[in-house]
C-alpha cells in the first residue's frame, strides 16, 4: 500500500475528500516531527511507540582499503510495536 492508497483508504474511513485528508495527514506528520525534534517519545497505545534514539559514534573500517573512519553520532527514529499490535498480527 503506497501513500496514495493510504490516503484514499483514510479518506474513505473519515468521509472526507482526498485533498483535505492529504492536508490533515501532512499536518499530523508536521506535529509528529515537532515532537521528534524535541526528543519526545510518541506513544500510541494501540499501535506502538516512536522514539528518537542516539547512536553513539563508532569507528568503522573499510575492508577493502583498510582505512578507518570515525562515524559520527546520529539520531535515529525508531519504532517499537505495542503488545496489542503484536497480538493482533500473531493471533492465528
Amino acid at each position: 500500500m503506497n501513500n496514495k492508497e493510504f490516503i484514499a483508504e483514510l479518506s474513505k474511513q473519515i468521509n472526507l475528500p482526498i485533498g483535505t485528508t492529504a492536508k490533515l495527514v501532512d499536518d499530523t506528520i508536521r506535529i509528529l516531527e515537532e515532537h521528534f525534534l524535541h526528543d519526545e517519545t510518541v506513544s500510541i497505545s494501540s499501535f506502538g511507540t516512536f522514539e528518537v534514539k542516539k547512536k553513539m559514534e563508532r569507528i568503522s573500517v573499510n575492508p577493502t582499503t583498510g582505512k578507518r573512519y570515525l562515524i559520527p553520532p546520529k539520531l535515529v527514529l525508531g519504532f517499537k510495536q505495542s503488545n496489542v499490535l503484536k497480538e493482533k498480527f500473531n493471533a492465528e
Partner: protein
Amino acid sequence: MGKITLSNIAEELAAKSKITREAADSFMHAFIASIDKGLQEDSMVKVKGLGTFKLLEVSDRSSVDVNTGDRITIKGYRKVSFTPDSAMKELVNRPFAHFEPTELNDGYPTEEEAIEDTATTDTATEEKAAEETVPTEEVNKEETIADKAVEGVEEAETLRTETKCEIIQDERESTKQQNTGQRSQTVCEETKREEAQPKQRRKKRHAYVWTVILLLMTMATGAYYHYATVSLAEKQSSDEEKGQSSMIIKPNLQEELGMEWEESPKEQSLPPMEEQGTTAPKEQGDSTEPTVPTAQDRGNQALEKERLTAETPPPLVPITKDLQNKSLKDITPADTTDYRIAGTLVTHELRNGETIIYLTKKYYGDKRLWPYIVKHNQMNDFNNVAIGQMINIPILEKKP
C-alpha cells in the same frame, strides 16, 4: 523528553488544522486504523513524509532458558518494522547533521618520515639560495651516504623524486620569479605525496627490520661484554692461583660471578615483559645443565622439556663453555660437591608465584644453590611445579 499520546496529537491537530477536537480524534484513530489495515492487506504501508511500515516474519529461534538452562525454541512471530522516510531521517538527525564521517589518521608519520620531510624542504631552500643544481646534488649525495646506514634504498628513491622536482623547479625558475618557484615546490610536494603513499608501507617494514637489527646488535655487544668480563675473571684467577692460596680468591670470584648472574637477567630483559623470577630458572637451567650430572640422568622426557624451554640466548653461551672449565667449576656454588645434604630442614608448600629459585633464595640467601632442592626432592622438571606442591628444603652442610 515527555511522553506524547494520541490525544495530545489530536489536540494539536485540532488547533493547527482548525477542526473540532472530535474530528481530530476520529481522524487520528482512522489514521492508525488505515496503517493497520494496510499492514494486514499488503503487509506494508508507505506514508509519505513519515516512513514505511512493514510486517516482517521473525522465524523460530532456539535459545536457553535462563532459569533452568534447558534448550527452548522461541516461536517465530510477525513484527511491525518501521523505516523512516529519508526526509524524516534527516529532520530527526538535524542536531547532528553537521557531523561527517572522517578518515582517521591511522598511518601517522613515523619519525623517519618527519626528518625526511624537513630534510627535503631544507635542500629546497638551499637550492634557492644557490640556484645551481650541481652542488645541491652533491649535498644530496652526501646526505644519502650518511643516511645509507639507516635509510638504504628509500633515500635513493626520494633522491630521484627530488631531482625530478629540481628539474621542474629549475625550468620554472628560469622563466619566472621566486613566487612561482614556491608554487612549483608545492607541485613537487604533491607529486611526492602521491608517491609517498605506497612507500609508507615499505618504510614501516624497514623500520621494523632496523629495530630488529638494533636489538640483535645490542644483544651481541652484551654477549661480548659478558664474555670479556668472564674471561678476564678467569685470567685473574689463574694468575692469582699461581701466587696465592685459592681460599682467598674464592669469595672474590664468587662475588664477581654473582654480579654476572644478577646482571645477566637484566641484560636479557630488553623485552621488558619478562620478570626476573621467570627468566632466572631458565638461564640457570641452561648454564648449569652440564655441571649437574643429576639433571642429565633424569628421564629423557625431562631433558626434552628442558630443551624446549631452553632458548639458549647468545650472551649465556660463553658461560656454559666456561663452566666446563675446571678452574671455574671449583668455585661455582651450584656445584653439588661443595655441600652435603644433611636431612630436611623444613617442608614448604608452594604458593602462587613461588619458584624453586625463589625458595633457594629465601632459605639460603643464594639462588645458585637450587640444585640441592631439586636433588633432595627428586624432581624431574623444576620448571614445572604446581601450587600446593610440598617441597622439602634440605639442610646443607659444607664439606670439609
